[in-house]
């Protein structure tokens, strides 16, 4: 089972577009979910949507989460806490750019790499 990828943007368009780019690169080999938008559909994030996205791609190999701005990160941290152990410690928020990081992470995940190297690959990305 490959590491799952979750894309959390303030913008549903960014999240969906990044997911399409990921799919084009890695096909269906990687569990992939995205969410974006606040609970009333504006730009922002929703802890519930993030929680659902992570649960929908849950993999025993773990899940790498890509976020854009601060609120997306904090809300993702909350979602991971709500999901709780033992799964929480196998869900990692990458300190990486959302679009480029998602593509790199998914490409690495599609090769069956472990969560730690999926995250490292996304984070390695010097800006570009």
């Amino acid at each position, binding site marked *: 089972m490959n590491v799952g990828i979750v894309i959390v943007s303030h913008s549903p368009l960014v999240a969906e577009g990044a997911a399409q780019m990921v799919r084009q690169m890695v096909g269906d080999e990687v569990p992939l979910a995205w969410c974006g938008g*606040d*609970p009333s559909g504006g730009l922002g994030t929703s802890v519930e949507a993030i929680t659902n996205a992570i649960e929908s791609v849950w993999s025993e190999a773990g899940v790498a989460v890509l976020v854009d701005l601060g*609120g997306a990160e904090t809300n993702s*941290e*909350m979602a991971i806490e709500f999901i709780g152990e033992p799964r929480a410690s196998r869900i990692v928020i990458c300190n990486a750019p959302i679009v480029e990081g998602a593509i790199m992470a998914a490409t690495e995940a599609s090769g069956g790499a472990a969560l730690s190297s999926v995250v490292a690959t996304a984070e390695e990305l010097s800006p570009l």
Partner: protein
Amino acid sequence: MTRLSSDDFRALVTAMASAVADNAERLTELDRAIGDGDHGANMQRGFDAVAADLDTLAAKPLPEALKAAGMKLVMTVGGASGPLVGTFFMTLGKELPEEFDRAGFTEAFSKAVAAVAARGKSHQGQKTLLDVLFPMQAALEDGKSVGEIATIAGQAAEATIPILATRGRASFLGERSIGHMDPGAASVALLASVAASMLEQQP
């Protein structure tokens, strides 16, 4: 010893929700200057959701009610302020016994502030809502009256104006963040003043 009745909790939440609604435009305006212009809408969505759930919440013992209200804020606010304000109420609920004295409340309040700082990976002086929460905590520890604490919260929000933002979206603006009140700080001062007027009316 104080004990906040279920009716007190109802009244408090209702007053907070309506104050947030009344001030939403002002809060959003503050956020438009140094953020993305949604803070009022975010807070209003959150407090409206809590108010909508009031029957369920008020049926719980106070600690559970606070935790559930905080959780609701986390789930509904949608901005960076959601997990922060939500964590404040969740932690308060976790730390506050059903009956408490001033020392007990002060301790729970301090833990809630610490939890917010941990959640935001932030500290005082960065032009955020913590710049109101920490002075409130100090005032509580100093034995200030409820009214005094609300005044201090208001002054602390004003005092964010000259600060250079180093956390949250306002930090993107660098020097240009100077000269504007932090929206999250304004929200917390608003909630403090609502709580103070309620508690002052108590016997």
